[in-house]
């Protein structure tokens, strides 16, 4: 089943990002299927994190369109919206992410992300980190601080709901015992889990993970695999991840996109990608001319 062609939540078209003379991403097209775990892989410097930064609004792409369709039907209106110059439809089902500032991508587009080098609020406790992630819903509950200052019951109900959600993710990530400790005090693996829990507390529809398994040992990687599958199966979202750990990628991905030097060199199911000679060449560092040779060798 190739959901990424029939029902994509994210459609990236002609994405190009130049930094001065450097072309970090060159005319990239790919799709993320609704409910899939999609992996974006490639050698160091292939432009994976740049793609992430474009999707999440941290970079404005030089060219290209990034469409987020929160419902399958919304995609039908894609070309109309592109022509109007607006950021998305009024019903909030379709967004053109390249037109939105980063915080709007997260808030309205429901795209959450983690960072390659963990970015937690180190001096705040684990629980506070999870509450900051629910800023926008809490802000509404607190009536933009007016109701909150007066301590009205509607705000207290909002806080109780936020705490319940935080407790749920603390349980899921095995961090309940450390809820009142500062985030910087956690060991590395726990910080990685907390960052994912924090992203999940913002109730995303698309979760972007930048190398979630980096620095984890094999056992932690296996736990991460199970955790990501649990999220996908129980929380109605799609996951896009950058990963170097092929164990993680091959085991859990439904769909893999391979980048090299800012261009897409392969796109398909894990089995297709695994047997793609261009991928093997890119990973083994073979010159372009030798790809044919490699291919011949592989087929024999």
């Amino acid at each position, binding site marked *: 089943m190739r959901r990424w062609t029939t029902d994509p939540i994210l459609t990236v078209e002609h994405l190009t990002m130049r930094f001065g003379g450097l072309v970090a991403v060159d005319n990239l097209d790919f799709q993320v299927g609704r409910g899939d775990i999609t992996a974006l892989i490639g050698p160091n410097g292939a432009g994976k994190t740049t793609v992430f930064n474009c999707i999440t609004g941290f970079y404005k792409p030089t060219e290209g369109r990034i469409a987020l369709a929160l419902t399958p039907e919304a995609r039908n209106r894609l070309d109309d919206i592109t022509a109007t110059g607006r950021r998305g439809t009024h019903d909030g089902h379709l967004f053109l992410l390249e037109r939105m500032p980063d*915080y709007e991508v997260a808030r309205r587009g429901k795209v959450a992300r983690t960072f390659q080098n963990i970015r937690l609020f180190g001096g705040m406790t684990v629980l506070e980190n999870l509450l900051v992630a629910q800023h926008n819903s809490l802000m509404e509950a607190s009536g933009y601080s007016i109701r909150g200052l007066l301590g009205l019951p509607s705000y207290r109900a909002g806080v109780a709901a936020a705490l319940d959600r935080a407790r749920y993710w603390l349980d899921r990530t095995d961090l309940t015992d450390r809820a009142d400790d500062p985030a910087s005090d956690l060991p590395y693996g726990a910080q990685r889990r907390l960052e994912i829990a924090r*992203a999940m507390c913002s109730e995303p529809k698309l979760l972007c993970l930048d190398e979630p398994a980096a620095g984890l040992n094999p056992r932690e990687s296996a736990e991460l695999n199970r955790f990501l599958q649990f999220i996908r199966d129980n929380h109605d979202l799609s996951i896009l991840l950058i990963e170097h750990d092929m164990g993680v990628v091959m085991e859990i991905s439904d769909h893999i996109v391979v980048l090299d030097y800012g261009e897409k060199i392969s796109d398909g199911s894990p089995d297709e990608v695994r047997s793609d000679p261009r991928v093997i060449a890119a990973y083994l560092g073979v010159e372009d001319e030798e790809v044919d040779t490699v291919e011949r060798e592989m087929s024999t």
Partner: protein
Amino acid sequence: MTAASESSAVNTRPPGAEIEDENREAAMAGEPPFKTHPTARQDLLAAALKEAAIAAFITLALAGPLIGLKTEPAVGGLTLVQRWTPVAVAVAIVFVGRLLLRLFVWPAAGVERRPAWYARLGVALPPATGRVAVGALFLVGLLLPFLVMWLFPSYSRQFIDLGLLILTYIMLGWGLNIVVGLAGLLDLGYVAFYAVGAYSYALIALHFGWSFWVCLPIAGLLAALWGIALGFPVLRLRGDYLAIVTLAFGEIIRLVLINWQELTNGPVGLSRIPRPSFFGLEFVPGPGGFADYFGIDYKPIHRIVFFYYILLALALFTNFVTIRLRRLPVGRAWEALREDEIACRSLGINTTNTKLTAFAIGAMFGGFAGSFFATRQGFISPESFNFTESATIVAIVVLGGLGSQIGIVISSVVLIGGLELLRNIGFLKAIFGPDFDPTQYRLLIFGLAMVFIMVWRPRGLIATRLPSVFLKERRAVSAEFVGEGRG
């Protein structure tokens, strides 16, 4: 997940765009100034001599022009008086002092070796002590005028005035704490909002004759408006750049106050600013006044005591609102902004609005304090709002501990109260002779206190952070984890 892998993983972070930032931070994280660890005694002596010589040379370079040369008015202009003996004394003191310190106080291991008493200084007191101390401080604050009138009847006016001064700085410190301590935005022009509040109150009260209680919120709102006006252009700036622009903003406001003669009366200032009344009762002698209505003898001190309670109420209001805001989403967003702005944006927090609310609310409290200042003095001029005021408020916040409400109270009492008391200390004259004037050394002592506290407690007096919410127990977060903000 296992502990072994976790500990080894800390230093094996994957490479990436953010790593440069982290490397920069790690590079700035601080190394002791002395890196050499000579093993043999001769090496130690040689290193000590070298360091002492360098220190002496720096002293010579500084003291040469500063102490060695002095201009004195003479017939037909200035003459240059040369004083090389004090320079030589200064250089000798530094040379010998540094040599002795290096040889005996910091032997071999560098500055990390500290005397035993030093370690005990930073030991945290049991949590109950904190609550008792806060309660005691509150009681003293509440009863201060009566305590003073009972204990020091002849000095009561002077002491209550001092209390007013300290309370003003506490309130300013609490207001600035929102911007600097919580949101992590270094604002060196905070006095501008104090000035806006003071002039707003004075002008509205003088021209429209509205009462203090009507003007106060208006002045606060106007200051908040100026906070937003400052906030917009500086949103993109961080760290040093932000500090410079806010500093310039403070100066601009002062220069406008000096030069806009038609509105502000220029450097002459505004006088005869109306005083607040006690529910319509003026503090004047004779029939219809406060004393007459309550059937007590008229005393000028009644007004001062009244002022004291107005300011106490304003300060407590500031404190209440700040504590409340810290536990609201907006307060947590301020602190998150201080910790990591990029992570905030990735969670859908509009950092522009968050910074602006911090600037606006901080400025509003500054405006309240300014209105009070205007009504208490009855006279304001641009001279009251120079950079020294901003620096003092920032010093109070930093010394008290960024983000700590009670730390600001302690540092205000020590810095402002301590310096004022210095004026009145008599026994120093007995030691240093009748010509000794302690006020001349105020800034020197101020500087020494700052250096001492920054060495002893680099994160301020109360550096730990209390979490805004907890699951099982509220445990203070140690200062080493708390970010200082880079914007």
